């Protein structure tokens, strides 16, 4: 063999040996290493010099070999297999030091004023912002990472920046910085499950910063100031003379509409429900996100010239083809995931069984269901918690959440669980429903079984196993199953040419969010499955970027 191209991932001992072997047999070798220097970390004891380290003579050979290209400080971004070959996209992080010029004089590290956590040495020592890792084989580099909070945030908000402004008392500057990327600071300030706070470094010291509530603080100042409106700074792009249709007025659709309108496109948002906002309007109860907060931020999108048509169902009568015929040049599908997942147990269709999303939607649209006195909710997510807390507010006296795993595995956010418990919701862990018992086809009680935790499943959570003979009944007036939501794609006609995934979500090119049909994009829960609002907003913003690209290329 020979004359082949080989990629070796990992520049340690094994990688170096493989690289030499491959190069000797005549292949072209790419040696990829994640850290700034090759050599690996394996320790060997050298009898002669009494040193403990790994300095392989192979290292020099690799460096000199013309058939080996060393790519350090790099990550693999994407691998695609085609025709028996691999197309690989590699990202080489900037090291900001020109190796050929550097003569290892250490002048820079002597003066660098920044002491950082030293990753290479497991945090046992400091490193300076500019530093080398390996003194045998110095590879200088500058660390300039995005802070963890910003990296974790789906829209990559400059959290350090806007919090710094709050600390300085400059609230307007703070909000302006947020609004550069996030069109709905108030909504996120009220309901974001704040993945950033999980990562916050302050959490290692005592408690993480309340990033979400700080955002709410600056965003609410503006909302309250609405009485004496300030001139709004909007820099709108030149009118592009092109129209885009967005199906679904949820966070993804509105964020996309916002960004496209700013770019100068004419945007119409089609919403099936009577109110815009998607799950924000019909999923999240008012006690978490007050209606006026939501409406004010949606109004801010309308102000940009976006038309939101409620009570307009796409499908029969108005298909995607019709939209194109009406002069829309691109379509963004973001219909969310509003269909309740079925429990698949007998009696599920009895009266008095109201799926969580349906219960919350009816309540939010002003026709609340009568839940009676005793309510059981099945599930461990935020929809389950919301349903339980709403049932309590609807007058139920006895509300119990049944969850088949333990508190540890519960996907709902801790603060929601705490609040529910505070308000008097009971939670029974390790219980699964078996059968809905009915009288006159109305629910009377629920037969359950106790569970115990077994081995972890594919999601990494421990799988619950039924405990034999532990069945018991719970008497109730209303049963609210809330074990998950799926997108409802029945509005797509076969002729729409839009492909779905095995999971029933819309298939897209992950880089551009474009579907199998040119000019049609999709994002948010209907493309990813149920997620959090800020992820949907991120998807909407991404779609806006690629829709713009698509329309400019047309």
């Amino acid at each position, binding site marked *: 063999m020979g004359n082949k*191209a080989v990629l070796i*991932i990992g520049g*340690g*001992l*094994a*990688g170096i040996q493989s690289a030499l072997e491959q190069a000797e047999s005549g292949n072209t070798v790419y040696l990829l290493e*994640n850290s700034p220097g090759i050599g690996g*970390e*394996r*320790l060997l*004891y050298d009898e002669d010099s009494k040193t*403990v*380290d790994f300095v392989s003579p192979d290292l020099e050979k690799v460096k000199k070999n013309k058939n080996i290209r060393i790519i350090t400080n*790099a990550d*693999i971004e994407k691998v695609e*297999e085609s025709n028996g*070959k*691999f197309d690989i*996209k590699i*990202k080489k992080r*900037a090291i*900001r030091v020109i*190796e050929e*010029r*550097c003569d290892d004089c250490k*002048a820079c590290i002597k003066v*660098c*004023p*920044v002491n*950082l956590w030293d990753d*290479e040495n*497991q945090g*046992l020592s400091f490193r300076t*912002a500019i530093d080398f890792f390996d*003194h045998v084989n110095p590879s*200088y580099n*500058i*660390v300039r990472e995005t802070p963890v909070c910003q990296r974790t945030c789906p829209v990559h908000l400059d959290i*350090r920046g806007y*919090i*710094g402004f*709050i600390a300085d*008392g400059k609230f307007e500057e703070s909000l302006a910085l947020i609004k550069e990327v996030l069109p709905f600071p108030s909504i996120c300030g009220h309901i974001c499950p704040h993945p950033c706070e999980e990562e916050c*470094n*302050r959490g290692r*010291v005592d408690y993480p*910063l*309340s990033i979400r*509530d*700080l955002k*709410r603080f600056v965003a*609410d100042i503006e909302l309250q100031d609405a009485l004496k409106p300030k001139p709004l700074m909007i820099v709108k792009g030149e009118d592009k003379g092109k129209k885009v249709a967005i199906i679904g007025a949820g966070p993804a659709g509105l964020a996309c509409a916002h960004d496209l309108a700013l770019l100068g496109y004419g945007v119409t948002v089609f919403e099936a429900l009577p109110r815009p906002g998607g799950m924000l309007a019909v999923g999240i109860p*008012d*006690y978490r996100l007050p209606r006026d907060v939501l409406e004010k931020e949606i109004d801010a999108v309308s102000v940009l010239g976006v038309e939101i048509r409620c009570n307009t169902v796409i499908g029969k009568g108005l298909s995607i083809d019709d939209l194109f015929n009406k002069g829309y040049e691109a379509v963004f599908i973001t219909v969310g995931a509003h269909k309740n997942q079925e429990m698949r147990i007998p009696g599920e269709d009895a009266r008095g069984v109201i799926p969580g999303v349906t219960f919350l939607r009816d309540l939010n649209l002003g026709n609340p269901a009568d839940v009676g006195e005793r309510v059981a909710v099945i599930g461990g997510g935020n929809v389950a918690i919301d349903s339980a807390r709403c049932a*309590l*507010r609807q*007058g139920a006296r006895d509300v119990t959440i049944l969850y088949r795993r333990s508190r540890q595995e519960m996907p709902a956010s801790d603060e929601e669980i705490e609040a529910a418990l505070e*308000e*008097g919701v009971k939670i029974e862990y390790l219980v699964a429903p078996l059968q809905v018992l009915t009288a006159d086809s109305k629910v009377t009680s629920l037969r359950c079984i106790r569970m115990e935790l077994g081995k*972890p499943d594919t999601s990494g959570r421990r799988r619950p196993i039924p405990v034999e003979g532990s069945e018991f009944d719970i008497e109730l007036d209303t049963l609210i199953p809330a074990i998950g939501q799926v997108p409802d794609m029945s509005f797509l006609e076969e002729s729409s040419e839009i492909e779905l995934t095995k999971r029933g979500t819309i298939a897209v090119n992950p880089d551009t969010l474009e579907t199998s049909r040119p000019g049609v994009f999709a994002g948010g829960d209907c493309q990813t499955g149920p997620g959090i609002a800020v992820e949907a907003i991120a998807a909407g913003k991404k779609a806006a970027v690629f829709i713009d690209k698509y329309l400019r290329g047309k």
Partner: protein
Amino acid sequence: MVEEKKRYILEFPDISAERQSIQELPVEERINNFNEVSLGFTEDAAVKEAKRCLSCRRCLGCGLCLAECDKDAIVFEQADEKLDICVDSMIITTGLERVCSPPPERFGYGRYANVVTDIEFERILSDNGPYGGLLIRPFDGEMPRKIGFVCWADNNEGRGESGIKSLSYAIHEAMLAKNKVDGLEISLFLPDNDDYTKELKRNDGKVPGISTKEGGIMAIKEIQESKNLIVQWDENGNAREDEFEMLVLSTMPEPATYIIELAKKLDINLEDMRGDTFSKEIYFSKVSKQGRKRSEDG
């Protein structure tokens, strides 16, 4: 580590150490209405909370290094580079160093200053490491005379194999440490598990001068003053204890997350590929079926 960072924070009296709490509607006022529960921060609390932000450090962009560099070798504006390559096959020989499950809390890692992981210990041993090859404790820079190595079994399914691999790694490090320092006393603690005993026997020739305790550890305590560690273990049903200046905990090596994702994507079974974790590198063979065939040919 935590303690140390705490001091770092408390140095600045202008930072309120306490997390500021938001106002909330009292529970009794919540039922029967849908008024918002959380009332948010007051201005005062918001500013105090914002001041808790550490403004996490990274390169300041001050340009002092460039000013000092005779060779003009520093380029602040260098951007990330994207490369597209096309290859016939791939070989994955990636390291494991940063992807290790943390050891259980009962061993005191993170709480006790002189309990380190095997990976940290490896850095300590290295002439290239944080202490320039001096075998010293992270708490006070003293040279320990008595070190305990602790291997533990993970009950999580699928980790058994790597747990045993971690034993050979512990032995390897213990030998390196012994070679480095004359007269170093080393004890090796094993879980009460036949697989480990077998693996130890397999390594028998390699562990002269290391005393092994196979009964499993009952408790680890830190002595307040010296930060030495008292280890209690089970020896044939009797509780024994001894004092160590430093403890080294084994970690379960795991392949890096992006490798797991890559493997999933290319539909290969990582378990098949997991090779000699002893060297902290997984030797995967070629990852495409085609590629693997080539490797056999070659």
